[in-house]
């Protein structure tokens, strides 16, 4: 059995006093790729933000372990340095901070070839632009992925990586994500609505977040098929 990289135990998350995730349990092993599905507003993004340590997402109960150690008291940057990386769905615009500048500050590997990686992601023209300023949805996602690759995390939390990305770039993004994960046996938690990314990324397991809890641990492609056929309503009833 592989060793657990990320373990979430009986986790309760509140935003401004309102509970959004309740008694949530999840384990992701080293090298494991987990897909998380769920309706809009089901708390998927909140889960990623809480794992990353954003203070607005308060942990009211439970624990998050990374490599067997609780990270609850750690600030965001320390979690990033430990090896947790996130691709955000809607990253903020940061005026004055250039994409290249940030990557140079945060890149963890001396061997990282920024220009080559940027070219692969069609982001060369964006390196000297302010972060996310005037970026389209797809450009934002590619910029996020570029930053993430430079960061070399052990686990990546991808929040709808393909949303807003055109079909042509979904395939290149998907392949780049897959190569990146496989290269160093990285783990991933991928939130997806469409499932397009799964055509390129080999996912081991899928699950559905509904009613604040996790259901239906099985082949993610099968889950997506079922959801397309029966909708999320069946998940609520089935609770498999």
């Amino acid at each position, binding site marked *: 059995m592989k060793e657990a990289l990320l373990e979430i135990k009986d986790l309760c998350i509140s935003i401004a006093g309102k509970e959004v995730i309740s008694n949530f349990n999840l384990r992701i092993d080293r090298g494991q790729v987990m897909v998380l599905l769920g309706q809009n507003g089901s708390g998927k993004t909140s889960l990623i933000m809480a794992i*990353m340590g*954003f*203070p607005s997402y308060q942990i009211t109960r439970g624990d998050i372990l990374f490599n067997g150690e609780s990270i609850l008291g750690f*600030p*965001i*940057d320390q979690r*990033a*340095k430990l090896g947790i*990386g*996130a691709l*955000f769905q809607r*990253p*903020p*615009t*940061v*005026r*004055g*901070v*250039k994409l290249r*500048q*940030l990557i140079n*500050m*945060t890149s*963890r590997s001396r061997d990282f070839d920024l220009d080559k990686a940027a070219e692969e992601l069609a982001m060369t023209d964006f390196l000297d632009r*302010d972060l996310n300023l005037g970026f389209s949805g797809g450009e934002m996602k590619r910029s996020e992925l570029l*930053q993430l690759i430079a*960061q070399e995390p052990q686990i990546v939390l991808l929040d709808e990586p393909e949303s807003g990305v055109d079909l042509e770039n979904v395939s290149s993004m998907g392949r780049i994500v897959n190569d990146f994960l496989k290269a160093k046996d990285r783990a991933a938690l991928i939130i997806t609505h469409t499932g397009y990314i799964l055509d390129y990324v080999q996912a081991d397991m899928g699950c559905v977040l509904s009613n604040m809890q996790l259901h239906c641990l099985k082949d993610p492609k099968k889950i997506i098929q079922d959801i397309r056929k029966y909708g999320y309503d069946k998940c609520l009833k089935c609770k498999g």
Partner: protein
Amino acid sequence: MSQMQRIKEELDQKAQSAYTKKATFGDDIDLESYHKTPGEAEYPKSLADLTPSQAEIVLSAGVDVKEKERWGTFLQMDHSVIHARSKKEGLEVMSTSEALKKYDWLWEYYWKAVAVDSDKYTAHAQLNPYHGYFIRALPGVKASFPIQACLFLKSGNLIQSVHNIIIAEEGSDLQIITGCATESFGSRGMHIGISEFFVKKNAKVTFTMVHNWHEDIVVRPRTGTIVEENGIFLSNYICLKRVKDIQMYPKAVLAGKNSLARYSSILYAHPGSRLDIGSRVNLQAENSRAEIIARAIAHNGTIIARGNLRGETAPIKAHLECRGLILGDKGNIYAIPELEGCCEGVDMSHEAAVGKIAKEEIEYLMARGLSAQEAQAAIVRGFLDVSIMGLPDVLKGQINKAIESCEKEAL
């Protein structure tokens, strides 16, 4: 009485009438509380004579005593001209007092872009004239390197009052870096600087001013610019060091068709500093364009960022932009943008935004592994980005150093 004497007497009379006239903006300064002359002070005899610490101070204001990549230098300490020399044919650098002796025609320019009776500070400068620089590019002369000028306040308790005249003759291209600095650490002082720019037909002036004062220095520059047909006036102002109180509101008049003025300012108000700084452009000719851009950080200090664009004819195009960042509990920024459209067909706009660094921006950068402090420093540095100004590389290095020290203070 000669014509020049008559002009001077008339100016003196006007100045006398304004000797106690308060300025429209800024705290009223009691000029009598400062000395008009420095008493017995010793000054270097040449650029090479500057002490290492003096050379360092002027360098931090962008003025290199080795004159590397400079086509001329003017250095004045208190009321004494230390150096005034051009290294390039077709560019003139001398003190204004010398230029007025040399060129009778210069009296036609004297106080034409700034009114001598504007307020007590202009009046003081007329009645207590102590040089300042005269810089002129002859017709068609294009500068590859800037001329540098430094006005240095050495003695404590002194008012330094200078009158600068800059003329870019037809078709010329003039670059000027001017740094104002002080050595009078810990003692009070005042600087009054009158600057008049004349940008002739098809000429271009790029003027970059760096202010490096100290916390007990009061500064009242009074600046006016007249731009003729197809002329371009680019003015950059950088104030990142401590100062007690600066109030200035330079004005450009776009008098010729297709002329352009752009003011860019980067301001940092340290605790206790008060910067009341703006730019004004009167667009009087068809197809003239103006842009005013200000970046202001109030770190427990006060910034009043003014801007006034007046479209007097059409078509014209003008835009004003002010972005302010407040650091600390006691920082204040007042952004006062004004647009005056005086006829149909003007195209004028403004945008102003003042706030603190957004929490989500800091957290986002932290999620990439930067500490909260590193994230804030990166955002502050980005905010003070001088790349919009197109500065020479030599100056960028100095400004980056000043920005670094601001970052450290801000943390």
